[in-house]
């Protein structure tokens, strides 16, 4: 009885092995050496037949399962290379499947970019733990925030202006864009260690307080209120830009690097106050 159970259990894997044997025979059928391979398996089959014939007289109904058992024995020898060939494409699939940004949905890309803009804004304009090491703060720099702030400031100023809206917008945009570039080149020429686009990104984010100030001044047409608001936002922008610029250059040349930054922000402040 136990022998019968042992015989019946391998029958299930034997069917799978026979399927694999068929696949292998199909694979080998294409190359000519495949015809030589089946010639060798018959010899162990003949060896197995006498083994099955010796217990043949006692269990007459067991004769059919014994030849079936002998066939998987010979099959088990031949499918040895099949797992090797099967594992290779599995590894190839594993190599191709690791996810990266190339295969992510578009929405994930949008969310990541927006999160980065918000994160950079917080790091620059509000107190952050990297204030003593500004280079780490904007490691993941981008120019979308600065671009938006410059356009927003230009739009606000041009809306406030009663005449010459085009000139006001063009001057504001040119002053801010070219100003950021010139300030960065100034630091580089002073021998400072600064990365061009990171600096542009920082100076652009520092415009956020001035944007808020310009918006308030557009809504309120009071000169004294304008002066107060612009002074506060100007100080805030300067405070935000100070650690980055000062850390980038030699301490003895700090004033040379910082003065143009304050000058640009002051000129923007005057633009905000003067335009009515």
């Amino acid at each position, binding site marked *: 009885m136990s022998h019968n159970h042992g015989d019946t259990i391998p029958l299930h894997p034997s069917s799978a092995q026979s399927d694999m044997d068929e696949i292998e025979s199909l694979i080998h059928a294409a190359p000519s050496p495949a015809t030589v*391979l089946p010639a060798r398996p018959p010899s162990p089959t003949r060896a197995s037949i006498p083994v099955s014939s010796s217990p043949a007289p006692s269990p007459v109904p067991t004769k059919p399962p014994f030849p079936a058992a002998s066939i998987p024995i010979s099959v088990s020898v031949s499918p040895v290379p099949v797992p090797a060939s099967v594992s*290779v494409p599995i590894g190839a699939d594993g190599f191709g499947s690791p996810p*990266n940004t*190339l*295969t992510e949905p578009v929405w994930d890309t949008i969310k990541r970019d927006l999160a980065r803009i918000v994160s950079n804004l917080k790091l620059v304009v509000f107190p952050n733990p990297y204030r003593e090491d500004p280079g780490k703060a904007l*490691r993941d720099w981008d120019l979308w925030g600065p671009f938006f702030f410059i*356009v927003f400031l*230009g739009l606000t100023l041009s809306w406030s202006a009663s005449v010459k*809206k*085009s000139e006001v917008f063009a001057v504001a945009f040119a002053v801010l864009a070219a100003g950021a570039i010139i300030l960065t080149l100034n630091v580089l020429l002073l021998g400072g260690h600064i990365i061009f686009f990171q600096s542009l990104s920082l100076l652009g984010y520092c415009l956020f307080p001035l944007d808020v100030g310009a918006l308030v001044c557009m809504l309120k047409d009071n000169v004294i209120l304008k002066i107060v608001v612009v002074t506060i936002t100007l100080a805030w922008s300067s405070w935000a830009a100070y650690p980055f610029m000062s850390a980038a250059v030699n301490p003895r040349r700090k004033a040379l690097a910082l003065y143009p930054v304050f000058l640009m922000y002051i000129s923007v402040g005057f633009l905000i106050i003067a335009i009515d």
Partner: protein
Amino acid sequence: MSTQQEVTENYANPKTCFFHVLFKASALAFYILSTLFVNNFVIIFVITVLLAALDFWVVKNVSGRILVGLRWWNEINDEGESVWKFECLDGESLARMNKKDSWLFWWTLYLAAAAWIILGIFSLIRLQADYLLVVGVCLSLSIANIIGFTKCNKDAKKNIQDWTRSALLSGSVRSHLQSAFGV
């Protein structure tokens, strides 16, 4: 056979190709038509530059990786240095990229930049400094994408060569196993 091949060979991602061209064409068309018929510089500037920025983002983050399997960006490492990052699909996937998609991608990149250069020359001839500002911004975005993808393409070609070698090695390994089994 050739006729059937021509019919079956089509754009693999028509929707992405459409958006890839749409934003470029809309920025150029809006700028040209507005300068001819509208006199409000602020509106022309804002809408044209926003369309150009949107085109830049779509090409860099969406159509670049779908049409040619490339993506690039710039980041700063721990030592405070600026590092270019390139990402491309593995060699097998790159080999299966659609040729028409790739052709459309590169040609539209170059044609858009050429168009902005021509428009810039016109603004220069007519001494319009404000419109030159618009062209300068749009041209900067186009050239940035061209430089980024050109570098990324060189990096990808190197990867393709590496993949080809590994494919040959795996093929030789398989044939070696078969010969050993035959013996």
